């Protein structure tokens, strides 16, 4: 009897916590697919609505896979037809006539017609919440000519328009499918949302009614890991098939065995920028900024901070853009020249960086290299995103920072003088405007010049281009080499 007393007491203790535990939650699962793959990612979408919530994770999972646009971006950065079979541009380059694919339906069963084009592009202005929507401000009107023809009229010629349509801005929504974008995406793509286990994974199932080539893999599971080591271990133990982006290049050696793993290395749109506050001393002085550019040995920095993976660029253009030029020669490593530019003065500056691995690793090297020329950089890591966004990005209370600017074709951020760089050169803005309105050749010429201007002005320093590093189990094919679109394209994936 006494013994039982103890166990009742202990049992009560355990039950007490279980009782407040409530239901265990009804997760459904069980993959019915014959051929499935799981891919590890770092950031889980907060919700599935990329029209009102920022975050690369949402278009990464959904664009091209679930939502399709009229056009899409291929691996070389060229625009290819998707829901539009073809398009004609008027001689004044202000009218685009899109011929739509026939027999395309949304996963809800509704047919895709020109009405949906009018609806989706119209929604960008009326319902989207993000600043990027201004990229489509150039649209004057969108008309339906017939069910399979949509006509877009622009206010002025724009080279950026078609490119913007290849991003999330061009995603086609169903007129009856936008009630709960945060949880229930309705698109025309080869995949549809299967099961979302929040905090764990999203499963995309092949869309049985897809208009195009059906994907070889009938279910793709996107598994989310906050911890890079946990993701590496999952690949090592067969928990996942692919690491979508290796978080620390040193960890690649674990996957060196070619009989077990394949490594893909390519480029991204991510310029790791060493930003300098052009709006306040000491970096309101061009000479001080130039001194910083001369003081940094970029090759050594890349080797130390990111195991030599990545590419040196020298300005705000990734190598996959048509107007890319290697600008690393503008400011070769020259500490003597840096000291000369500083004129014997020494400075102490606040380097407020996000607490992200590449920023922390790079900041250490930058600090020690700047110390050589008389600039003392006090590193202050800020919690990302909350604190960094508030202090550096919004208030502009910093001297230097380091962040990977991942948006495609984002040189334009330097044209906004209220942007946290506080860079102000009207000449630069003029070049961008002329590039957007001019012919393709003009665009390329102007943007080359704009990139050169940024570099000459030392508006910032460009530490390196972030590499795209993917590791997969041997036998997985169809992985995108370059991560230059907003989506992680699953449509070509296959498993042998």
């Amino acid at each position: 009897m006494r013994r039982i007393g103890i166990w009742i007491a202990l049992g009560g203790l355990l039950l007490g916590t279980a009782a407040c535990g409530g239901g265990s939650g009804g997760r459904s699962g069980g993959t019915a697919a014959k051929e499935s793959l799981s891919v590890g990612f770092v950031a889980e979408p907060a919700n599935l609505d990329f029209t009102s919530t920022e975050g690369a994770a949402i278009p990464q999972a959904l664009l091209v896979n679930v939502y399709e646009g009229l056009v899409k971006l291929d691996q070389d950065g060229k625009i290819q037809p998707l829901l539009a079979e073809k398009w004609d541009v008027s001689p004044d380059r202000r009218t685009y006539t899109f011929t739509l694919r026939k027999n395309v339906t949304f996963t809800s069963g509704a047919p895709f017609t020109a009405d949906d084009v009018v609806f989706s592009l119209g929604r960008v202005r009326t319902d989207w919440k993000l600043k990027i929507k201004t990229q489509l401000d150039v649209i004057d009107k969108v008309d339906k000519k017939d069910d399979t023809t949509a006509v877009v009229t622009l206010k002025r010629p724009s080279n950026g328009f078609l490119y913007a349509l290849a991003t999330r801005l061009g995603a086609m929504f169903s007129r009856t499918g936008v009630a709960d974008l945060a949880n229930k995406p309705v698109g025309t793509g080869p995949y549809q949302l299967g099961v979302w286990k929040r905090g764990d994974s999203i499963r995309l199932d092949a869309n049985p009614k897809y208009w195009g080539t059906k994907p070889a893999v009938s279910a793709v599971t996107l598994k989310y890991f906050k911890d890079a080591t946990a993701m590496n271990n999952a690949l090592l133990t067969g928990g996942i098939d692919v690491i979508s982006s290796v978080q620390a290049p040193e960890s690649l050696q674990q996957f060196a065995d070619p009989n077990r793993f394949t490594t893909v290395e390519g480029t991204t749109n991510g310029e790791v920028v060493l930003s300098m506050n052009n709006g306040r001393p000491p970096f309101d002085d061009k000479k001080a900024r130039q001194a910083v550019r001369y003081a940094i040995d970029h090759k050594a920095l890349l080797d130390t901070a990111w195991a030599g993976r990545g590419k040196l660029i020298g300005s705000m253009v990734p190598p996959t853009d048509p107007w890319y030029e290697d600008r690393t020669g503008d400011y070769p490593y020259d500490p003597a020249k840096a000291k000369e530019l500083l004129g014997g003065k020494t400075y102490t500056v606040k380097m407020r960086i996000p607490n992200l691995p590449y920023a922390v690793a790079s900041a250490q090297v930058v600090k020690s290299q700047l110390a050589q020329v008389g600039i003392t950089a006090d590193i202050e890591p800020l919690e990302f995103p909350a604190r960094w966004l508030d202090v550096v990005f919004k208030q502009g209370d910093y001297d230097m920072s380091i962040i990977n600017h991942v948006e495609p074709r984002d040189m334009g951020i330097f044209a906004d003088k209220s942007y946290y760089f506080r860079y102000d050169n009207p000449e630069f803005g003029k070049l961008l405007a002329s590039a957007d309105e001019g012919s393709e050749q003009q665009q390329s010429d102007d943007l080359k010049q704009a990139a050169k201007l940024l570099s000459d002005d030392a508006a910032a320093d460009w530490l390196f281009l972030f590499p795209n590093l993917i590791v997969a189990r041997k036998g997985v094919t169809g992985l995108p080499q370059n991560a230059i679109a907003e989506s992680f394209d699953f449509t070509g994936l296959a498993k042998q």
Partner: protein
Amino acid sequence: MIVYLLKRLAVLLASVAAAGVAVFAFMAVLPGDPAEIALGVNATPEAVAELRARFGTDRPPVTQFLDWFGGLAHGDFGTSYVTSSPIGPQIADRLGVTVVLVLGGMVVALLVAVPAGTFAAVHHRDPLGAAISAASQVGIAIPAFLAGILLVFVFAVKAQALPSGGYVPIADDPAEWLRSLLLPWLSLGLVQGAVLTRYVRSAVLDVMREDYLRTARAKGRGRMGALWRHGLRNASIPVVTVLGLQLATLLIGAVVVERVFVIPGLGDLLLNGVAGRDLLLVQGVVMVLVAAVLLINFVVDVCYAVLDPRLRGAR
């Protein structure tokens, strides 16, 4: 007994209310605006203002608090800023996972601590007993996440015997569910077991010096027999106290262990909520954790009364 319980219950409710005020106040002074974070680098002033209005964060703090706490009182945790879905079901879903994790860890801890501690006490003069004490000291020094990483390295990466992480709901596949939880249980349980071993050992040692145990031995019971019949129940009182405190520690340890093993539990939900400044979600999770700890303490108090009749009259 009834009066004692009512008093404890009153303390419990008052503590929960005080905790609610504290949690809300902490969230209010946390830097970072939820609307600005949701929109990130793409924020326009108009969109931020609109989102603030939708979240309700543009209202005075007192109104926000009353609204939130009033909702809590009838079980409504509100709607998450980030996911736009109700918070209550999300917490319930995750809590189930965490409770299983913590209870499993506790069971492992007890399975380790009770035999090891008792053995160490009975043999406290032998080298083997001393060795157990020394081993438990080492165990106390290891944080649960480090134990987790080491266990993954040995059992998952090297031996390929168990999954390195992930969680399979029991409804999907009971065997996989067990396999996915074994390492997390061990990493939580072994460390806590080491701590608990010390308490079991000293409690049993104390009891062994009591007169009633000597009397029992004099009546002809063996050493283990006397301990079993007369000692364990008395030794269990300090152990239950520690166990209650340990459950709170285990809950906190679970937050980290969930991250190491990629388990979608409450800790994972909490950390995501903090990063996205999903204030209502964070408040909800923290309130549930606070309430759980307070409830554990309450249950511990009740357990005293069951275990030791002397306490019932005392208060």
